[in-house]
């Protein structure tokens, strides 16, 4: 199921310049707000003009600016699930689902009925979108798209308008409903959990460009780029100076880390996930960081410690330059009793296996 996309669009000072090539059926695009994710989807659907571009879906060319081919959005057969669902407010549920159908009256009616059944909307046919819950609205929007039988579906931040609990359930619902859909689906989101759950392949977007692409699980395990590490939720990212093949100096944290395996030579910073620190009481072991508690936030299932490293007494002498770096340490609930009996650890130890080796660009 090959997908080939190249889009370029200058928008005031913002330049969108994206390239997507994928064989996957479930593609996720992760990026911060305002990085051009939605613009990319609108460009693919054809509701946003682009300056230059090429779009091919399943061997069908939808846009080839060089050859002056630009299929109208009406003829692209791409389903678009908008963030706010964009249900037609004056049409009933039934009319909304039927809006995109071009068959005969009977055929349309039958297909609409089947979709309403499939998306558990029976009994709501005559309601207006304003009279539905968020979850029901999303199902109507999806039913409307599915009735239209698109070749590809684009999901534009479909859960960001919903509260936590509902969003969780709807994600599950959406995944189940999309299960038997054979076409390609692209999900765009700034929420890494959504993306992780949904996509086989992941693209990471920053300031209008796709900065990396790979299998989702692998990208989370080894993001390689600094921006990718940050977007996949890595809280501690800091610059490093390579000493030799097996060790590097972290100036901001004031330690030299030694590794058994070779360190990638292009590494200029590392990431360390906030859950992965090992608390150490007493004797300072290898790869240990002294710290001072700055603040702590307690959440229902997790404690977030914000730790000051620059001001830890032992670091003052070691540090090459002054400055205060903060690290985050997240502690799951099951570790709380130990912390309560033994107090805060003296050091946080880095597990070498868990270090993410990153490059700036």
């Amino acid at each position, binding site marked *: 199921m090959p997908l080939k996309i190249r889009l370029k669009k200058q928008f005031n000072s913002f330049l969108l310049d994206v390239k997507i090539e994928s064989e996957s059926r479930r593609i996720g695009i992760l990026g911060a707000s305002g990085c051009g994710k939605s613009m990319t989807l609108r460009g693919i*659907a*054809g*509701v946003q003009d682009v300056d230059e571009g090429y779009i091919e879906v399943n061997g069908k060319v939808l846009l080839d600016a060089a050859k002056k081919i630009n299929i109208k959005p*009406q003829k692209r057969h791409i389903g678009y699930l*908008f963030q706010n669902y964009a249900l037609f407010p*004056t*049409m009933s549920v039934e009319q909304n689902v039927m809006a995109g159908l071009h068959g005969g009256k009977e055929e349309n009616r039958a297909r609409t009925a089947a979709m309403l059944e499939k998306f558990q909307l029976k009994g709501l046919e005559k309601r207006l979108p304003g009279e539905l819950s968020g979850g029901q609205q999303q199902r109507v929007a999806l039913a409307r798209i599915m009735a239209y039988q698109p070749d590809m579906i684009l999901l534009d931040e479909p859960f960001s308008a919903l509260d936590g609990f509902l969003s969780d359930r709807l994600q599950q619902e959406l995944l189940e409903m999309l299960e038997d859909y054979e076409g390609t689906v692209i999900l765009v989101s700034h929420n890494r959990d959504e993306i992780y759950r949904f996509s086989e392949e992941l693209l990471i977007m920053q300031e209008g460009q796709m900065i990396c692409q790979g299998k989702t699980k692998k990208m989370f395990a080894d993001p390689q780029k600094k921006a990718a590490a940050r977007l996949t939720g890595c809280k501690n990212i800091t610059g490093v100076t390579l000493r030799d093949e097996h060790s590097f100096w972290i100036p901001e944290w004031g330690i030299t880390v030694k590794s058994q395996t070779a360190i990638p030579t292009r590494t200029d910073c590392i990431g360390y996930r906030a859950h992965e620190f090992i608390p150490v009481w007493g004797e300072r072991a290898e790869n240990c960081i002294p710290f001072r508690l700055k603040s702590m936030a307690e959440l229902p299932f997790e404690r977030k410690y914000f730790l000051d490293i620059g001001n830890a007494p032992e670091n003052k002498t070691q540090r090459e330059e002054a400055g205060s770096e903060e690290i985050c340490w997240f502690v799951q609930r099951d570790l709380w009793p130990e912390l309560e009996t033994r107090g805060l650890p003296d050091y946080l130890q880095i597990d070498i296996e868990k270090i993410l080796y990153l490059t700036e660009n």
Partner: protein
Amino acid sequence: MEDLTTLLQSLDWSPLWISLKTGIVATVFSFFLGIWAARRVVKAGPKVKAVLDGLLTLPMVLPPTVAGFFLLLIFSTRRPLGAMLYDSFSIKVVQTWLGCILAATVISFPLMYRNARAAFEQIDVNLIYAGRTLGMSESRIFWKVVIPTAGPGVASGTILTFARALGEYGATSMLAGNIPGKTGTISQKIAMVIQDGNYATAGIWVAIIMLIAFGIIVLMNLVSGKKMKNIKRW
């Protein structure tokens, strides 16, 4: 009291019918022209939009006599277009009911256009995008999605347009004149009887037109208030 009854009985009601007829016909024209123009402007780029909007709003901000001047300039039978219309099609605008309609349409058009445009611009553009990605044609999107969604705004625009067309005076008096039973509208009637010092008759017509105008505004509030059910009372 008796005076009033005799006055009402002897009153020539033709200004009311002429005004109502003019108002309705002019509103129909303004309705379609205004929606058409609003759709064009909403789709235009920022520079074209600024110029186009200026031109289309002009009749609203200029004195009606300026509109009357231009209309005369175009449609006077001594002018090329006016002469051509009269000679070839026997269409005469000056001093006819057609002139009433034309003047009222030109003056009331900006109200329709501006209200329709404001209503269109309020619409979530994603609705239009959604229509496109669902394969709906542009005109289908417009009539099935945009117009119903913009309904309250368009409706209140239409009512205001009617109110404005109903009371038009300046351009009408210049173009259509005040021919009793033919082009004599309520507002022209009021001006005329006051010149004769007949304040009683003028008062009746003032009361009538005020009643209509008040009714229209209340109606408009009810129409546009419908959509805002959840607006909180202060």
